């Protein structure tokens, strides 16, 4: 799957970065058909969660 | 003491006059710091307020300076009741702690200005100014 390929792309980066990117990619994919998607708040939540750990 | 209906047990003052309360109670020298506690200042201010016939509702931000429990049952509490009755005339006020507090607070809010004027702006040590204030009271 391209998803795996993308995840693999970032294998040399820190775990928190990888987690964030993986979650952001899923988010962006869900909104891909929209011209101006409102994803900023969702991204902030992703970052919040990653920082809590 | 007799039971009263109360919703609060804190005594509040206007934030703006807090500094007067502090100046009159902070420090060790009896001559410049004539009152021991905030409650003492409050009682004096309330009495003065009544005596001058002035009361001011609290309008600005409020500060809690002490609690109901500080009032002595033999002197302070009868006096609070006394101020309320003297002002309102209705004796049911004896059962309402909130009204007792509010009445006293409003008198104190006016009287504190008089207290400051007499003790701090006049020349001489605050304690002697206080004594002069008392001695000059002309009671029958």
């Amino acid at each position, binding site marked *: 799957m391209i998803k795996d390929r993308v995840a693999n792309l970032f294998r040399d980066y820190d775990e928190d970065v990888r987690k964030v990117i993986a979650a952001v990619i899923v988010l962006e994919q869900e909104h891909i058909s929209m011209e101006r998607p409102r994803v900023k708040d969702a991204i902030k939540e992703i970052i919040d969660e990653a920082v809590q750990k | 003491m007799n039971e009263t209906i109360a919703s609060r047990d804190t005594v509040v003052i206007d934030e703006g006059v807090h500094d007067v309360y502090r100046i009159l109670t902070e420090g060790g020298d009896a001559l410049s710091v004539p009152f021991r506690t905030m409650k003492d200042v409050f009682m*004096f201010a309330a009495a003065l307020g009544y005596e001058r016939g002035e009361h001011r509702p609290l309008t600005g931000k409020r500060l809690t300076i002490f609690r109901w429990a500080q009032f002595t049952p033999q002197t302070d509490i009868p006096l609070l009741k006394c101020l309320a009755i003297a002002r309102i005339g209705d*004796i049911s006020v004896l059962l309402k702690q909130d009204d007792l507090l509010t009445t006293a607070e409003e008198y104190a809010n006016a009287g504190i200005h008089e207290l400051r004027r007499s003790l701090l702006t006049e020349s001489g040590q605050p304690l002697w100014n206080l004594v002069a204030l008392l*001695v000059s009271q002309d009671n029958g």
Partner: protein
Amino acid sequence: MKLDRITLENFRQYHGKQRLTFSKDSKRNATVIHGVNGAGKTSLFLAINWCLYGEGPSNTGELMSKEAVSGAREGETISTSVELAFIHDGERYLVSRRLVGVKQLDGSVPVANLDDFTMMRTKRDGQAERVNNPIGRMNSILPSNVRTYFIFDGEKIDDFARPEENEQVRYAIYNVLKLEVLERGRNHLQAVANEYRKELKNISRGELHELVEQEEKALDEKQKAILRKDQLEREIESARRKISDIDGRLREMQSASGLAHQRDILDGELTKRQSESDQLVSNIRDLATNGFIVIAQSAVEKALSVLDGKRERGEIPSSIRQQFIQDLLERMQCICGRAFDVGGEEHRRLMALMDSSLPGSLEDNVLDTAAALRPFSERAQSLKDTLDRSMQRRAELFDIIRGLEEQLDDVSRQLKGSPQEEISRLEKQREDFRADIESYKLEQGSLETRLESLALELAALKKKIDAAKKDQTKEDVLTRKMSLAQRSADAIDQMYQTFADEMRERIEAKTKEVFKLLIWKDSHFQDIKLGPDYKLDVIDRYGLSARPDLSAGERQVLSLSFITAMSRVSEEEAPLVMDTPFGRLSSQHRNNITEHIPELADQLVLFVTDEELRDQARANLEPRIGAEYRLEFNRATSCTEIVEVNS
């Protein structure tokens, strides 16, 4: 995604409900749908796009079956819908889009709603549930921005191979291979990082450091002041000892001993009087503090008169009377012993008496208050008297103390003026030491004041430091968030080009693979190139670009190769739905393509005219056909019927 079944209802020329089931077999993975031009292939193709993505004419009236509309009575509801069942990731989905309208008198059918789009999902346990975010889900399964590469119109087959179409190629790769997803992700992460950065600027920075410095300074000063006070205390001690020595020597000297002695007595007296005066001041302060009862005299008198008045008017019965009435009521018996009934005259009278009196607690309160207030005037007077006496005594002491001090001065003067040099010298020294003590004491006093204000300062600083520490924590968290967002954005930025290049190379390789498969055998093309400028090129045996020389058919094969390569590389697991893909190819090309194309997709759906699929082409495709349909157009009704062809 694998298509399962499509159901049309009153959609364009498909009147009533009509159904078509796609082949899901892995070997016989092709579904072929025949129809002459105008029979309804395009409408069926549109139905898929409309159902999944809402693509279609803006005038939705054009979608409703005219036959259904004309056949309906005024007031009758007409429903147009397309339902598509598909399988994705092992789960069954059912997507449906529907239009509903009511036929008007004038024959028009205004549509009641914007189309109604629902998605249901059947879980592995068989339960069906509605999907809450259908658009988001479709975006995860097969987003609308890439559908044209999977569900594509044969007319557009040329699009990728024309020389001027680099942009189309780039756009295709960008969307299908998730580059857009990455780019959006990077941009949004960057925007979030920037927002955090801005927020950080607003939090006060460096304040904590400054405050701690201030605190240190204050503590340092406090320390020094304490040390100095101690030092002064020792100096005072030392000076006192020296004075004591001098006193001792003076006492021994004959001509001085008398005066020295006198001084001793005076000193003792002075100390006593001074401490008496101090005590008096303290007492006065205590009295004055309670002096508010003096001020409040008029209030006390007024309150007592109110209370007494009420009592005199009988509004405050004594508690004895209340208790008495209570007892009678309980015993239901009058004081004379006669019993009375509930409801009887006597009973009612007594109850009235009880009711008219005040509640017990208030009554007690009134009595107690009056009792407490009554002694006030005496207390006030007594306080005033005591205060008067104390002030008087203070004045007296003041005079006494002054008198003693004068006498002491006198003694000192006499000693200083003594004809004996030794005595005079000693006395002068003594005086110096006393002056020293006085100045030390003064300094001690000011240090004392300074220490008091330092204590207040330190308390205030501590509060500020605690608040600043809280801010610091906030700052730290925000910094970590900003850093994470930024690092993530940077990571995508760094890897983006690598990913883009990798994808481009894979498409290039796959396109070449497919092209070699689909083009006829004796072609003289050596290679396919997809450069960083996204130009899709064919290289001939001379190593030169052969694109300008491609025939129309060859161009179409190149395009088709590119599309199928994309489909494979994207690993999207999507069906390939093609509307008349072979229309413009020569039979040679057609034959070659039909032989290989089923390999290039998991599921293949082909809309073809009979012209397209004949003879060899048909024979090539035959072993892979899993389902076949014919679209039969009825000229009389202008409606199409889907008919299954069984072989």
